[in-house]
């Protein structure tokens, strides 16, 4: 039995998004959260390229994917700068200690 290319890519997309969501839900480390976000967005990007291919509008899907890449990179950069500052001010990267802002 051969698996068609779209099915394979959809499995890959679902896997990446699933792993990303699971890691986002379970991890408490700020940098690991950024890793999880990156995985999630890679899945979304692949889905955009595949959707463009399936509907015959490859170029539209690709130009949207570029937007996603840029937004994702900026999120990662800001997240890491935030992590560095959080570490400097609070002394830990544990997400739970960020709840001290409530006090």
């Amino acid at each position, binding site marked *: 039995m051969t698996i068609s290319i779209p099915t394979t890519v*959809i499995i890959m997309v679902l896997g990446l998004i699933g792993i990303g969501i699971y890691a986002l839900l379970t991890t408490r480390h700020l940098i690991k959260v950024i890793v999880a976000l990156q995985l999630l967005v890679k899945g979304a990007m692949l889905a955009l390229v595949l959707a463009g291919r399936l509907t015959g509008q490859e170029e539209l899907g690709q130009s949207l994917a570029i937007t996603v890449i840029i937004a994702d990179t900026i999120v990662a950069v800001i997240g890491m700068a935030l992590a560095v500052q959080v570490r400097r001010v609070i002394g830990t990267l544990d997400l739970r200690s960020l709840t001290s802002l409530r006090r």
Partner: protein
Amino acid sequence: MFHVLIAAAALVCAIQAVRAARLLLSALWLAGASALVALEMYLLGAPEIAVIELSVGAGLVTVLFVFAINLTGEENLDARRTIPRPLSWVLLFGASALLLIFILPGINQSETGQVYATFREIFWEDRQLDTLLQILMILAGVLGVLGLLSDQKTDLSPTQKDRRA
């Protein structure tokens, strides 16, 4: 078959990136997953995106990760979780089911070879607003990083100053 191998390898890299105890290894596995996603995009007929993803996703972001990990240091948090494991599995399956409901109707659509416009036309003309917003996003990102990494002493809020005093 090649596609299946790439998909399997990318998923293994992703799982390892999440599971790895050391942050540096996590970043390296993420770079591997990114490179495999880029390869898959190339095979899907999107070489421009593949190149950008490879240079930005696997290159730049990994370098930034290593930089950030160096600055913050490795930190082993205890294994307590924010939400219980069964709940996270339930949420995960719920999200996957929703995705499948949206994806499945389109999966059997036949691939059409019709080309509406070239990549350049769409990127620079049809989606001009997107391009402008991307430039704005990059500027906002630069300003954000500059603001975050600038000297902390000057922008303490009054309550923080009280607490420090």
